[in-house]
């Protein structure tokens, strides 16, 4: 294993030191491993907190700032944060208008945020509402599994709900917008290579040079099936077919098309994938209203990509276009 690290046990703490050094507009609580806005709490604004295992950067800490998250809790690599962290973050950023927890649907994340919300309700009286994202169509038989995973749509929820909170929406309306984004978004990912969890020191799964994994999760957990390596055109079909089969994306105000890199794939290839995705959408009668291309929710150094489509409407378009200033997404300010 070759990685730009010192000791595997220090990875998260040292990355947070780097974030603090690189981004003076953010604050870092190193003890609780929380990244938060320097101007938190923002009085009267609904505060947004997310968090999860580390290794998905820029998600979540890279999305802290005006127009998006108020705080992000960093867990160990691929391990959810603990309730204490979420509680501490909730106290730090509550500006009196309540707090929205944005949680990806993974067993550990859901349990730890749930414990934090129970403790927050019992101890502090801060009003907390949780929204769980579960957009990954790769998971079939949701009744017999932990359910669909929260993946690419999480980035879009954080941006759009963040804009809603900035516009002055109250907690119930911010949560409603977040749920609407989750309900109108679908994702599917694939891997060319495995990732290596630093503490484990070897690849999480073996993927032969001539095979790819379709339906991968963001922790290297396997997907629907393994197939022979194929050209981008065919890979795009394999990702788009289940997404388009799951929800009707035609009509309305079009879609936001998001091609995400898994961490180890160059932008050059992501744009090739975006071109294929756009071609398929045009053939399927789906209008693209907005696009996003790049590594935004990654899986360490895994090579591969995911595609997320989100049904847009006038309100979501306005909130998506609203100014945002974070290390990972920045426009309009």
């Amino acid at each position, binding site marked *: 294993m070759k990685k730009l690290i010192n000791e595997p046990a220090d990875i998260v703490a040292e990355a947070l030191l780097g974030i603090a050094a690189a981004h003076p507009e953010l604050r870092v609580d190193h003890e609780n491993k929380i990244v938060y806005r320097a101007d938190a709490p923002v009085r009267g604004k609904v505060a947004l907190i997310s968090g999860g*295992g580390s290794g998905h950067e820029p998600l979540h800490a890279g999305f802290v700032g005006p127009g998006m998250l108020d705080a992000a809790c960093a*867990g*160990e*690599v*691929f*391990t*959810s*944060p*603990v*309730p*204490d962290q979420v509680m501490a973050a909730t106290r730090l950023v509550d500006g009196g208008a309540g707090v929205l927890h944005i949680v990806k649907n*993974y*067993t*550990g994340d859901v*349990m*730890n945020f749930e*414990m934090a919300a129970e403790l927050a309700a019992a101890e502090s009286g801060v009003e907390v509402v949780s929204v769980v994202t579960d957009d990954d169509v*790769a*998971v*079939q*038989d949701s009744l*017999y*599994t*932990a359910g669909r*995973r929260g993946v690419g749509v999480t980035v879009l929820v954080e941006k759009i709900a963040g804009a809603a909170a900035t516009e002055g929406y109250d907690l119930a309306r911010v949560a409603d917008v977040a749920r609407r984004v989750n309900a109108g978004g679908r994702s599917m990912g694939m891997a060319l290579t495995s990732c290596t*969890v630093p*503490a*484990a020191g*070897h690849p*999480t*799964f073996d993927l032969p040079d001539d095979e790819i994994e379709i339906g991968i*999760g963001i*922790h*290297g*957990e*396997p*997907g629907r099936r393994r197939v022979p390596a194929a050209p981008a055109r065919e890979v795009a079909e394999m990702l788009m077919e289940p997404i388009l089969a799951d929800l009707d994306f035609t009509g309305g105000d079009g879609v936001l098309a998001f091609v995400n890199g898994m961490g180890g794939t160059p932008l050059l290839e992501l744009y090739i994938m975006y071109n294929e995705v756009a071609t398929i959408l045009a053939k399927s009668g789906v209008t693209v209203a907005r696009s996003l291309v790049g590594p935004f929710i990654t899986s360490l150094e895994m090579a591969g990509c995911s595609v997320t489509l989100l049904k847009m409407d006038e309100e979501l378009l306005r909130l998506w276009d609203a100014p945002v200033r974070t290390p990972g997404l920045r426009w309009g300010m």
Partner: protein
Amino acid sequence: MADGTATIDAAVIERWIRAFAAAVAENEELLTRLDSAIGDADHGSNLARGMKAVLAKLDGGPPGGPAALLKQTGMTLVSSVGGASGALYGTFFLRMAGTAGTADGIDQAGFAAALRAGVEGIVARGKAEAGDKTMYDALAPAVDALDAAMGGDDFSGALRAAADAAAAGRDATTPLLARKGRASYLGERSVGHQDPGATSAALLVAAAADTLG
């Protein structure tokens, strides 16, 4: 040997927890390897980190009474492990603490009841059912075996029966199809792999048999 009123005090509980910590440290690589096959390759390192934190708390002077000790262990695991295993093992010890009462010691039947309450806490938090290929598949047969063997005067033997049942439950997870946690995303491909959570849970029961009997 021991009669039903023999007391399990904080020192005994501490021995159990230390033995579990040692077993986790010893099996850290195995747990991570099993998790790498059907999960995300971190069960060993996460649990080892948590139990190290638990030991540090114990070294700083354990609190008085079994309940306080169990509560401290549960809170430390919740705060230091993360993931599902932190919430589930944390909930297990917290529920045990809630049932153990405030006395200086609990009797053997009280311990068995606390153990069952801990396992019920895991079910409440994780919503697992028997056969879902989780830690519950090792713990459920263990508490059943313990209760079944409690009537006699051989607590050691009852704990050994519980440990054997946990080990058998752990082994029986191999052919199962995972229906909870990250392994569930594998579907059919989860078949043929021993569940890492059931494996660490069997270590917990084995540690009890080694220290409490």
